[in-house]
């Protein structure tokens, strides 16, 4: 079975462009519950490998190194914060269709007043074994 990484960035969706820090506590709670329920559903279906949210852009760091001197560490937030990864789900599923279905479910996570955010979810297949030579 192929594995897929479903990636979510900080950019908002058509349903909501307000950062979560400005939502009401109830809306935040409903959103978190949605994510937890989705994970529980994927575990019950035997499909979840891992799901994690990442700490915010304010504590993000970027490291570059030329292999000689000292590594250069840049502190966040960065100007293009919206392109940063917010979290991911790694799923092990029958097919790409099923991965797209889960991505669609993820994209409809509720924002303020329960309106689906419509986050764009990036779907990337994890490199696996080659096909067998018949």
């Amino acid at each position: 079975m192929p594995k897929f990484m479903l990636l979510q960035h900080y950019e908002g969706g058509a349903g909501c462009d307000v950062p979560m820090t400005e939502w009401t506590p109830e809306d935040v709670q409903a959103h978190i519950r949605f994510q937890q329920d989705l994970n529980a559903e994927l575990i019950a279906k035997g499909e979840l490998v891992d799901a994690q949210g990442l700490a915010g852009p304010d504590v993000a760091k970027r490291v570059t190194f030329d292999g000689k001197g000292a590594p250069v560490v840049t502190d966040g937030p960065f100007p293009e914060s919206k392109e940063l990864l917010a979290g991911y789900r790694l799923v092990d599923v029958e097919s790409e269709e099923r991965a797209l279905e889960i991505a669609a479910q993820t994209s409809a996570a509720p924002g303020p007043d329960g309106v689906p955010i419509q986050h764009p979810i990036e779907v990337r297949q994890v490199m696996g074994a080659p096909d067998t030579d018949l």
Partner: protein
Amino acid sequence: MRTGAEIEVLLRELAPQVLGALVRRSGDFEGSEDAVQEALLAAAGHWPREGLPDNPRGWLIQTATRKMTDRIRSEIARRRREEVAARQEPPSTDVPDSDDTLLLLFLCCHPALTPASAIALTLRAVGGLTTAEIANAFLVPETTMAQRISRGKQRITASGIPFRRPTGDEWTERLRSVLHVLYLIFNEGYASSIGDHLHRTELSAEAIRLTRAVHAMLPDDGEVGGLLALMLLTDARRPARTGPHGELIPLAEQDRTLWNRQLIVEGQRVVLDAVAHGSVGAYQLQAGIAAVHDDADRVEDTDWAQILTLYGLLERMSDNPMVTLNRAVAAAMVHGPATGLTMLDSLDATLAGHYRLDAVRAHLFDMAGDTESALTHYRSAANRTTSVPEQQYLAAQVARLSALDGVSQPE
């Protein structure tokens, strides 16, 4: 006194027989499976210290039945239905045991289950692997794998599939389903036997072990023999399939002295025997193709005409475009690359965007001496493959052709 390893082998052989005996009697697959796991644990603890009981299978059946009864007693108030099962005598220990292993396999590979559930359940209930081992082999967390197994068991319970030998048309369909699951298990292990996941090759060994058992029980079924032969003849090439750094080595470039002669001889004997049993099936044909490849000591000795004929027969039997893709390669070897390239045109619709179509096209253009077209398709294949070793191989072809010809291509 037996060693721990010997006892483990014995337990894995007995596990499906014991489970089959319990399911046959109680009709409760989930409950039986849990009880057998406990009995196996008990045996693994007692036997190495106290020696084997006179009748190991009987011991396991008695112990598992007792565990099951204990459990049911404790739940009796809540689950009245199972009170009936609790009063049952232990099943007789002298019914033919191989039958139960086979029936169990039919149950675990039932077409009502998803392939993922059937694979997991078969490895656990028939193969005797632990949930942790199966999870490790498929690179998913144990809880996720446990759910997959549990869903499979629930599905079997819910659909009320009877624990008996299927008959008539159902037999053929159910057996096909069993062979497909065994094939998938083998493939999972074989395909991933390169790169970082060497431990997964155990899956191939397990698939071969189970298929051997089915073959021993159904020696007259040509497709069971076909599948076993296909596995043996394919597995024989495993040692030559990877280079020193885990890189993929295609069939044409393998060091054939590394092939496992013993497996080849056995596979060829099994496939000949299978063909002698009448109706020709898809596994037999694939085994036949593998046998022809394995028969050639040097790649240039390969009997491509025979391979082309076999792919032609296989194509008539299946609508899998990958078969046509392979037939095009064989046709190119017999009639030249132009013939193969023409055949590939028919696949543009069904395999649109699939890297293998590009990879084969590149290979045939390469054969035809059209370096520029070969480069274009090798690049396209390298960009689309979902496998690291394959990507490295395709990228190496791009590098080889670029250097060879001095052709520079836009990225």
